[in-house]
């Protein structure tokens, strides 16, 4: 649909989709550090600055899509990928939309409101049996050399049109500035806005 197959010897590019990418999770407050005389639980804060440690960490296999731009992907030591997960599960939707109209509504609504997600339609040629999304807030870093030796796990890539949308979405997501969108509301508007939020909001002085 919006994907293309990729020759094994083609250099890695933005929009390439890889299966079986390792995601490492760790806790800085509870780190099992391995030393010559055994293993012990450490807090990262107590470990000396600039020191190197060996630790027991969990590794999960996930699907990822390359977000590193093409030049960097050829020259850089590392390549970054955004984790890819099932669309409906990420949204917490338990039921599938009933018809194409509901589907398009859900997809467009998310595209317009949730910039961290990039929609990837189902397509068996890349192994997506259901619609998926790339999550720009979950970035995986993999050694360039390792990923080059891993091209049998590259299941496809975004085609030209999808690739152009993808790069714009990445750029838009990472160039955003944080701001409180309720700053311009009147006191009454702020109160209405605040009721809709699940979290307590701090009004600006002119909204109190």
């Amino acid at each position, binding site marked *: 649909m919006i994907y293309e197959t990729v020759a094994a010897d083609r250099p890695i590019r933005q929009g390439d989709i890889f299966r079986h990418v390792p995601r*490492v*999770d*760790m*806790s*800085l*407050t*509870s780190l*099992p*550090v*391995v030393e010559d005389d*055994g*293993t*012990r*639980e*450490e*807090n990262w*804060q*107590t470990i000396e600055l600039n020191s190197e440690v*060996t*630790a*027991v*960490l*969990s*590794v*999960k296999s996930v699907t990822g899509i390359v977000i590193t731009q093409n030049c960097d992907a050829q020259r850089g030591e590392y390549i970054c990928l955004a984790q890819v997960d099932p669309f409906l*599960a*990420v*949204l*917490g939707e338990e039921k599938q939309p009933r018809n194409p109209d509901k589907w398009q509504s859900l997809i467009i*609504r*998310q595209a*317009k*409101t*949730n910039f*961290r*997600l990039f929609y990837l339609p189902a397509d068996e040629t890349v192994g997506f049996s259901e619609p998926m999304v790339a*999550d720009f*807030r*979950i*970035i*995986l*870093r993999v050694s360039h050399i390792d990923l080059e030796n891993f091209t049998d796990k590259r299941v496809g890539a975004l085609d030209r049109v999808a690739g152009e949308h993808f790069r714009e979405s990445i750029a838009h997501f990472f160039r955003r500035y*944080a701001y409180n969108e309720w700053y311009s509301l009147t006191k009454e508007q702020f109160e209405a806005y605040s009721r*809709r*939020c*699940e*979290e*307590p909001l701090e009004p600006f002085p002119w909204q109190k």
Partner: protein
Amino acid sequence: MQLLTQTATSNYALKELSEDDASTVIGKFFQRGAEMESGVDQPSARRASHLHQWLLAATLTARVTYSQPQWDFFRASMYPAVIVGVVSGPRRLSLQAARRMALGVLSDTEKRLWKERASEARFLVSFWDHENR
């Protein structure tokens, strides 16, 4: 920001992992992979399964390990996850406890991640839904 702020405790080693937790899920994942690779040949599936378990153990305890902390997740601007850790002195661990701790981190990260994404998605579309009613 308080309602959606999550707190992670540090003592993963003390947690009992249930059937749904990461160690079981990962164990089943490797076992399933071994069975798929070996077709219906159950004895060889079991042998492959043991091999995968050894590989998993070797991976988790390898001396050369690199990691990328998921900083972005922990300082997500909209729904921050605050880590409240008890700073304690070094505590000796068996390799089994260390493995359990690492899998507990994975399991907890997964739970928080899926919850946070769904919650944010619902919040963002709530304005859209309201406007289109």
